């Protein structure tokens, strides 16, 4: 471990790590360009570098993209990557309240906390954690997805039924394409392009960015900018103090992010959603969530960043990548003749540990660069709406197109965007629809696989036995009951308040 630290501290290593972080900042900020795409594009450039430096550069990009995706999420309500969806729930209202710099700095600082925690797990707890993660099979993933779905209760806005309906619509959209069972084309309506399914990135841009652009158009006769912004001195330190004022919240979000990051296939978006849900559940004052609560931003950002280094744990211990960018990094290692897994740990332990340290330092470099650029980035909201709306539309088109080089994804994005724009007027929140779209590809394959297993041993034994299953089922039920209870209590409090004011 010490040898790895010394390697990671060498000037050349640090230079390439910082370069990776800078590229990651750029990749995450542009909607549609995911960390996976960024790492994949960077792989050829890293061949000219020694293995350690090349892999550190990729790790730096991955970690920083998990922060910088929150910048468009906060400023223009358009998540840079799916992992920043939950950040937008509170980040954008903060910007609308003129607290843009606070939102970006909080996101940056919490990303650093998450990365450092996740990298710490990578360096210290890799083997014990992987033993728990290995116990997750299809039924456990199914229940994890169901548990993540219970966040609808926190996102639904005024009507929980509309939230549920939005979630169901998102899940249905995620079913478009080839089925997981018999590879049957579903919901393609005779359109061959739909056989490939709805691109997650294009779908999320459609659900979040397009209604936002159209709302800007409706509002430009009333206001010139998204929000007023006046730079304040000492904002960085004030925000840091606010973030660290909730140590339990930080610890919980980091632990959730790190654990979910280890589970192959779950990844940063699920980590952020579950962490946000738990932050709401454990909070004494839930009323501010979704309206610009700093803890909403930190819960999501800590978890999605903790999940990034944690996704490397199954890669270096078992050779199984925990996320898509981790798979690209695995590919980069294999192209150099190195096989990720226990062998690599034994044959080149210094490389494995230096990578862990690199991820940790990437978090710190991200904070330094992020807080330096934050005042500059927030100035985006000072671009007049009449210029900003068309520019976001162009970026959304590029983002939706670039992910699969398919113009049909742009049509899907626009269609979904118009649909969400209309139903928002009826009281729907885009969050549950996006949530369904993200969770569908986790829940359905797990359900199908578990059903195949249950053909042999019975449904009850597959779904309702085992400590993890029982824990997740209990948590899901408690989560639903808790939502019902808090909604009733809030309604009662509102009614009491109304009576008193009368």
């Amino acid at each position: 471990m010490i040898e790895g630290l010394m390697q990671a501290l060498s000037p050349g290593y640090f230079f390439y790590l910082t370069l990776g972080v800078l590229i990651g900042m750029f990749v995450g900020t542009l909607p549609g360009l995911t960390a996976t795409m960024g790492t994949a594009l960077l792989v050829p450039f890293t061949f000219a570098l020694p293995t350690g430096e090349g892999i550190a550069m990729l790790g730096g990009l991955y970690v920083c993209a998990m922060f910088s995706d929150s910048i468009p999420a906060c400023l223009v309500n358009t998540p840079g990557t799916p992992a920043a969806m939950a950040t937008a729930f509170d980040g954008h209202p903060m910007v609308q309240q003129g607290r843009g710099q606070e939102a970006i700095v909080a996101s940056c600082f919490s990303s650093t906390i998450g990365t450092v925690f996740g990298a710490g797990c990578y360096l210290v707890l890799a083997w014990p954690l992987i033993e728990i993660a290995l116990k997750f099979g299809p039924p456990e993933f199914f229940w994890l997805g169901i548990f993540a779905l219970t966040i609808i209760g926190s996102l639904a806005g005024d009507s929980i039924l509309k939230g549920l309906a939005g979630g169901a619509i998102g899940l249905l959209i995620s079913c478009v394409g080839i089925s997981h069972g018999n590879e049957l084309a579903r919901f393609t309506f005779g359109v061959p392009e739909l056989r490939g399914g709805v691109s997650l990135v294009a779908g999320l841009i459609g659900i979040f960015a397009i209604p936002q652009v159209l709302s800007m158009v409706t509002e430009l006769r009333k206001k010139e900018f998204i929000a007023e912004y006046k730079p304040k001195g000492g904002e960085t330190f004030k925000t840091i103090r606010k973030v660290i004022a909730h140590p339990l919240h930080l610890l919980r979000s980091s632990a959730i992010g790190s654990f979910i990051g280890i589970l192959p296939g779950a990844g940063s978006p699920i980590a952020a959603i579950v962490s946000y849900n738990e932050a709401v559940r454990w909070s004494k004052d839930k009323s501010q969530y979704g309206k610009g609560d700093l803890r909403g931003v930190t819960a999501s950002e800590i978890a999605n960043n903790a999940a990034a280094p944690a996704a490397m744990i199954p890669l270096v211990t078992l050779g199984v990548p925990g996320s898509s960018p981790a798979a690209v990094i695995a590919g980069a290692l294999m192209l150099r003749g190195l096989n990720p897994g226990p062998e690599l740990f034994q044959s080149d332990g210094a490389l494995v540990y230096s990578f862990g340290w690199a991820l940790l330092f990437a978090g710190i470099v991200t904070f330094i660069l992020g807080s330096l650029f934050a005042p500059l980035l927030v100035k985006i909201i000072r671009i007049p709406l009449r210029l900003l709306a068309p520019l976001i539309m162009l970026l959304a088109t590029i983002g939706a197109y670039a992910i699969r080089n398919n113009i049909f994804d742009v049509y899907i994005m626009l269609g979904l965007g118009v649909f969400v724009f209309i139903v928002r007027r009826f009281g729907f929140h885009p969050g549950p629809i996006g949530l369904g779209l993200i969770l569908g590809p986790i829940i359905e394959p797990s359900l199908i696989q578990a059903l195949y297993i249950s053909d042999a041993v019975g449904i009850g034994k597959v779904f309702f036995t085992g400590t993890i299953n029982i824990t997740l089922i209990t948590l899901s039920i408690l989560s639903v009951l808790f939502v019902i209870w808090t909604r009733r209590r809030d309604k009662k409090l509102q009614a009491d308040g109304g009576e008193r004011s009368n």
Partner: protein
Amino acid sequence: MQRLADRDFLTSVVLLGVYGLFAYAIYTATSTDVKDWIFPKLATYVLLIIAFAFLSKVLFEAILKRIPDIVEFTKDDQRAYLDVLVFFLIVLCYLFVMYGLGFWLSSFLMLILTSTYLTIEKTTRNIRLAVIVPFASCIVFYFVFLYFFYVPFPRATWWMGLMPD
């Protein structure tokens, strides 16, 4: 008649529409394996139940003669939605001409047209901005996406060879 613009009534109509779209595909499918359809079927059932819940609520409130929650459409809203319609039509035209003019020229035209249309106070300065900003943005995005991210955008087919990409 006013109840037709009730928020919950419109919600139930939308949900029934989405349900109909997906349920039609489910019930006309040839596969008989339950595993192919169990998940979307469950989701459609959820939609159907919620749609009927809203419909029942609207009926119940009509019987009790409660005031409906109307989706309002003021004069300002009408003007704002006209802006949205024009903006959206320009974007649709942009997608249509993209393969003819090439990605970047059509993007530049879309940006100029939308920015100019959305500029309410058409002063010389504002119009100049509505041209300069799209031009500069297109140049920057062109180099970033083509030479850094290698995104193969649609090329011009109406004047092939005359445009770079």
